[in-house]
């Protein structure tokens, strides 16, 4: 009886300690992704697709500063990721793909490769794992990046550097990779 009581008390203590550690990395990554995904969908649909494809008043272009046009949705997201990284915010994120227009955005680590393949093979599911980079262990989550607007599909299908040109609306085109140092 005493042993059982000690076991229950120890378990309660450990549970309490875990609670004191704050939010679990998986939940934090999910929450971060929800914000990224919402902003990305809104910018793509409400700004780029509306102005470029529907109202035809302003296009999005890779060289948006020189040409005084809109940043591409992927550039907009990367600008956010770089700003977060500069502020040393405690996490990083990146937009990657197995078929990137810019080859610097193809997977670089084994976990990125596995994660991107997983979210393609398992629609609706996320990929979670751990990896060690530069001496630091990271919790790494990969979320499917789905083509939400015709602007995404047409740009990737028509780009001369795109390794794939048969994307369809609603299809997974890549993934958002979120890393939290442990």
């Amino acid at each position, binding site marked *: 009886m005493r042993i059982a009581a000690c076991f229950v008390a120890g378990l309660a203590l450990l549970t309490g300690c875990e609670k004191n550690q704050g939010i679990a990395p998986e939940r934090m990554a999910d929450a971060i992704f929800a914000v990224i995904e919402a902003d990305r969908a809104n910018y793509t649909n409400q700004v780029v697709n509306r102005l470029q494809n529907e109202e035809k008043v302003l296009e999005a*272009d*890779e*060289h948006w*500063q*020189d*040409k005084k046009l809109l940043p591409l949705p992927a550039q907009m997201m990367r600008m956010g*990721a*770089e*700003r977060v*990284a*500069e502020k040393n915010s405690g996490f*990083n994120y*990146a937009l990657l793909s197995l078929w990137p227009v810019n*080859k610097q955005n193809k997977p*670089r*680590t084994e976990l*990125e490769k596995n994660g991107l393949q997983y979210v393609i093979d398992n629609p609706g599911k996320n990929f979670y794992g751990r990896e060690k*980079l*530069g001496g*630091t262990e*990271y919790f790494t989550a990969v979320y499917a990046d789905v083509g939400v607007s015709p602007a995404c599909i047409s740009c990737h*299908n*028509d780009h*001369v*550097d795109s390794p794939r*040109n048969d994307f369809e609306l609603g299809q997974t085109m890549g993934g958002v*990779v979120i*890393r939290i*140092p442990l």
Partner: protein
Amino acid sequence: MKSYQFKFWHYGLLLTLAVGSLAAYNLEVADKSLFITGEMSHGHHQIELDCMSCHTDGFAGEEAMQQSCLNCHAEELELADDSHPRKKFLDPRNAQLLETLDARQCISCHTEHKPEITREMGVSLAGDFCFHCHSDIAQERNSHKEFGFETCASSGCHNYHDNGTLYEDFLIAHEGQPDLLEDAHLPARTAMQMWLQEHPHKQPLQPEQADLDLKSGSSADIRAAWAQSAHARSTVNCSHCHTDNKQQFSSLDVVEQCASCHSEQRESFIQGKHGMRLSSKLSHGLVERTGAMSPLQARIPMQADASGELNCISCHDAHSVNVHYAAVEACLGCHSDEHSLAYRDSPHFSTWENNPENGVSCASCHLPREPRDGQIMVNHNQNHNLRPNEKMLPVCLNCHGAEFALAALADKKLITQNFKHKPAEKHRTFDLIRDRIARMSNSKNQKTKSQ
């Protein structure tokens, strides 16, 4: 009296004290020159005695050093839309690449005090440094498979930082232009024109209206020069500059005084090698100790009689503020390298002789007229578009086609001859661009057929 017996270690102690005192004196009181570990690059040699500007307190570490670099260079990198900004490399997925080349730190590529390994642009890495991250470029661009990695950043094709005019869409847009454009002209300066529009009823000041009575014999000449100047035209009287009847100005005084009306020109002037010692970002008191830059301290060939400090009135005479003199005569009064000496035999000089307002002077290329806030202003940082020289392309494009201009900027012999002839060879970049245009066209045609 007992004579003191010196022992060997006494001499050692005295020698150590003497050397230590000399070092301490040099470090704390004198110019710190004993502590310079090697010759500095051409970009920093003027400020080599201002150790603290880069090293801060000497023990602050890499981050502080990085901040020192950004303290002077951040704005330029921002303007250039830096292709490899530090923020790009903060993602942990780059960890393996950073182990080879830490692109987050300027000093990874620009190590100072190492003249034996320092190349153009102050780069202290081997010329094929692009390989570290782009070793698989031939898989992405089949057209690049025959190129050596040492040519990426040295052939007028790519720059590490500034690719403002070296990206595909820009070159495609400028493909097929003639060597000399039909409507070749430089943008007109707007400052005086705008002032006249804003002050239509103001009349030029006359010599007798000068409000400072000089007693010296040259006063009539000064008064006459001023009366013909843009200052007299825009009702800037003597006392605007000679506040409190001030007659003697240091270089710092001159630049500050001019900046009270020409602050943008001051900002660009102190970013270049002519004015960098006058920058407020350097340690307080440096310019008082070293003086402003002088042709005598330059590392490139200068005229034997060139002397004095560089400030606004070195090129623009203080009273005539003559922009035409400043555009050619002032430059050639100091510079005597081959490129400068060849200018008077160049077609550019002919255009200048025929039309000083719109001809091509030294300043047309090296102190370019640039759009800023709805005006055309002269960028007084003469080094801005030479780091590297493909950055001069926007200036050339006022008169020349991009293919012609890029070929000229890549022809080192032609540059030495001050563009006396047409470039000997075409630039390979445009062959690649034409291949690329054909690929894009084929790609579109195939898609149209398949629909």
